[in-house]
């Protein structure tokens, strides 16, 4: 192994070219439009999501009791959420007893400050990182960088994103929007600036790319004094943390450095050790389409002479307790970040992860982000609408999160938030439509206007262009021409109004008392 890379010593962390925070990003439809024009990304995403969804379907199909497992997983999570306060205290107690230090963080700033102080206390200016959604959510890497500490991502896909000055676009495969040749170019261009350079003549062969990453990362693993991770599960009963991964880089970080800092969302708790078995079946099959993930690392505090001797756990709230307060919305906290819902989502497949303006893209992002951040920004107001409500996400979710229902609930929240303010064009249109539908005679009058349109259009069977706002429809689609006779006119003509079995104009009598 050449010593060249090592001799370069500490180099600068690649900085994201766009702002790290998502504040002020445009709403979903305009970001999606941009993504749709990126044909390379469209191809990459369609290919990757279809491959993994086929794999998932196959391995899930192998488990005859899958539905029972799903139910068990969702019930365990619901039970945990209902008694979260107790389980968190139990977790803390057992962690402390096992030699770990527990920190509580209300929000991102607090968590970042705690982590920075812990790294500074070790007197180092770099850390290695295990892929973690929680640390992405709080933008820990950016905070560390601002404090003069380099955070090296060691997950292959995260490394690609970091070296590419990019943002993750998928929960599990953050560089899913990139293909092999793009990755080769990034490695060739950027590795030298971050440490060991890419080998001469690197091709886009997967084994060559993996080798390049391995060599580049190895020196960082061996040098690092501090590692930062998240956790997939935190077991209250024993004070154990669990990380599932595929590459083994996580295990290097979790075992080699002297100090380990784990940032754990408070919803990651499982009551007992035996609960884990359900999730060790649900997670790998749902996420990577594997029967079992290659590496499962578990640690309980610090063990003398083995692994990190200084273990810190930062329990992160960052909006979770407010999600918990909503009895229906809280089911989003069951999420085990498997990303199955992303891989089946037709909207995600086309729009890509960046359009969601959050570290949580796809269907779960569309419900989790507005719950964690609130719906005050245009972007967060647009997220619940970033779905056709096709229901594919609910069908695959291993913990049965009813994402379509949550989307509708959040849309209602967005509209409720606008009531009382300046009336929007949409709100006015909806209110007058509701007024029209409130009485069938009004509805019939409106239908007359629609059929009138058909008379004016003569014998044409479709419309090619309509004025705004219907232009959003006719931009790419023909619109049907209203028929000359509505159904109800036909009914009265052929069956007579009395055939309804009601009195006709007086309205129904039998179902009274419902007002």
């Amino acid at each position, binding site marked *: 192994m050449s010593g060249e890379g090592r001799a370069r010593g500490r180099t600068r962390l690649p900085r994201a070219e766009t702002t790290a925070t998502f504040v002020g990003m445009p709403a979903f439809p305009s970001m999606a439009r941009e993504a749709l024009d990126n044909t390379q990304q469209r191809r990459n995403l369609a290919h990757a999501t279809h491959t993994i969804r086929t794999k998932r379907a196959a391995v899930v199909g192998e488990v005859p009791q899958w539905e029972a497992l799903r139910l068990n997983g969702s019930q365990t999570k619901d039970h945990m959420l209902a008694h979260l306060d107790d389980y968190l205290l139990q977790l803390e107690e057992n962690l402390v007893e096992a030699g770990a230090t527990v920190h509580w963080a209300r929000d991102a700033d607090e968590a970042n400050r705690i982590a920075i102080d812990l790294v500074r206390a070790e007197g180092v200016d770099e850390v290695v990182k295990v892929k973690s959604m929680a640390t992405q959510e709080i933008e820990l890497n950016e905070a560390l960088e601002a404090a003069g500490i380099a955070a090296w991502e060691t997950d292959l896909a995260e490394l690609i994103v970091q070296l590419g000055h990019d943002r993750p676009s998928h929960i599990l495969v953050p560089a899913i929007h990139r293909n092999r040749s793009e990755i080769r170019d990034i490695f060739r261009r950027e590795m030298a600036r971050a440490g060991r350079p890419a080998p001469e003549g690197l091709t886009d062969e997967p084994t060559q790319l993996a080798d390049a990453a391995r060599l580049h990362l190895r020196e960082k693993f061996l040098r690092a004094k501090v590692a930062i991770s998240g956790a997939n599960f935190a077991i209250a009963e024993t004070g154990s943390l669990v990380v599932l991964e595929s590459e083994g880089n996580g295990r290097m970080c979790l075992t080699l450095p002297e100090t380990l800092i784990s940032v754990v969302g408070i919803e990651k708790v499982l009551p007992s050790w035996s609960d884990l078995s359900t999730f060790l079946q649900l997670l790998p099959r749902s996420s990577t389409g594997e029967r079992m993930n290659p590496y499962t690392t578990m640690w309980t505090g610090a063990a003398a002479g083995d692994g990190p001797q200084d273990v810190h756990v930062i329990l992160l709230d960052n909006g979770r307790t407010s999600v918990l307060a909503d009895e229906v919305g809280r089911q989003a906290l069951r999420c085990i970040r498997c990303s199955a819902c992303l891989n089946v989502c037709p909207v995600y497949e086309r729009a890509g992860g960046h359009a969601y303006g959050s570290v949580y893209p796809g269907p779960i992002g569309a419900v989790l982000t507005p719950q964690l951040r609130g719906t005050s920004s245009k972007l967060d107001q647009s997220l619940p609408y970033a779905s*056709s409500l096709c229901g594919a996400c609910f069908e695959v979710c291993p913990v049965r999160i009813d994402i379509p229902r949550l989307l509708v609930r959040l849309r209602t929240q967005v509209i409720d938030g606008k009531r009382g303010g300046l009336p929007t064009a949409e709100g006015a249109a909806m209110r007058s439509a509701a007024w029209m539908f409130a009485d069938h005679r009004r509805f019939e009058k409106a239908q007359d206007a629609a059929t009138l349109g058909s008379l004016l259009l003569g014998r044409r069977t479709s419309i090619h262009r309509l004025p705004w706002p219907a232009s959003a429809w006719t931009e790419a689609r023909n619109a049907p021409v209203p028929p000359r006779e509505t159904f109800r006119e036909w*009914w009265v003509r052929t069956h007579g109004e009395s055939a309804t079995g009601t009195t006709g104009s007086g309205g129904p009598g039998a179902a009274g008392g419902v007002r």
Partner: protein
Amino acid sequence: MDAPVTAGARTQAPPGTRVALLATCFNDTMWPETPKAVVRLLERLGVTVEFPVEQTCCGQMFTNTGYADEAIPLVRSFVEVFGRYDAVVAPSGSCTGSVREQYADLATRSGDSGLQEAVGEVAPRVYELSEYLVDVLGITDVGAYFPHRVTYHPTCHSLRMLHVGDRPLRLLREVRGIDLVELPAAAECCGFGGTFAVKNADVSVAMGADKARHVRDTGAEVLVAGDNSCLAHIGGLLGRERAGVRTMHLAEVLAATEESA
């Protein structure tokens, strides 16, 4: 388990039961041929179907766009209009889904316990057409004749909200003269999604374009589905492409007979 149930048996709604047609506002105004077909079909099968003219709209567009307050009066009028029927049949998976799966949340929001109770009573009696034919009437052979190459798109709300499964296909397979071909990636959403089609028009069209491509790949003359809204979207794209593929509601195919051909 898949054995065809023939219309010869004239299995019908139990005597004395009252069956209402929920035409849906969209079909009533834009696609009257569909509810007409339901009437023809059910009458042919010996069911007396009523059309309460007081009905307007199930409120789905309001509910799914976030206008719950605007939807609640429509829930009220729905239970008033349809409360007295033993069965309500709709040629729409999404409107049926709206009543069966979403009314309870709206009733809860209204805070009116009477409405919650009424919804709880009516909602389970609302059937999508294929459910009513197969589950209630016990028929898969409705005596239809439709000599065309047909492919079937299972709309998302029929498929995943109502779980109608293969009921529509079982009905179509019994149609005489039909050349039924499988649609690739059939379970994928066409991209309509109600107001999604205009709020996220670009993504909606991208999804629909893939669906239209799959439809063309089958070489079918007619695309059939259980929701005219999805068909209007896919048909609108096929029409813009001048693809020469017609769209047709399942009810219209099932209502077609040798005499009507």
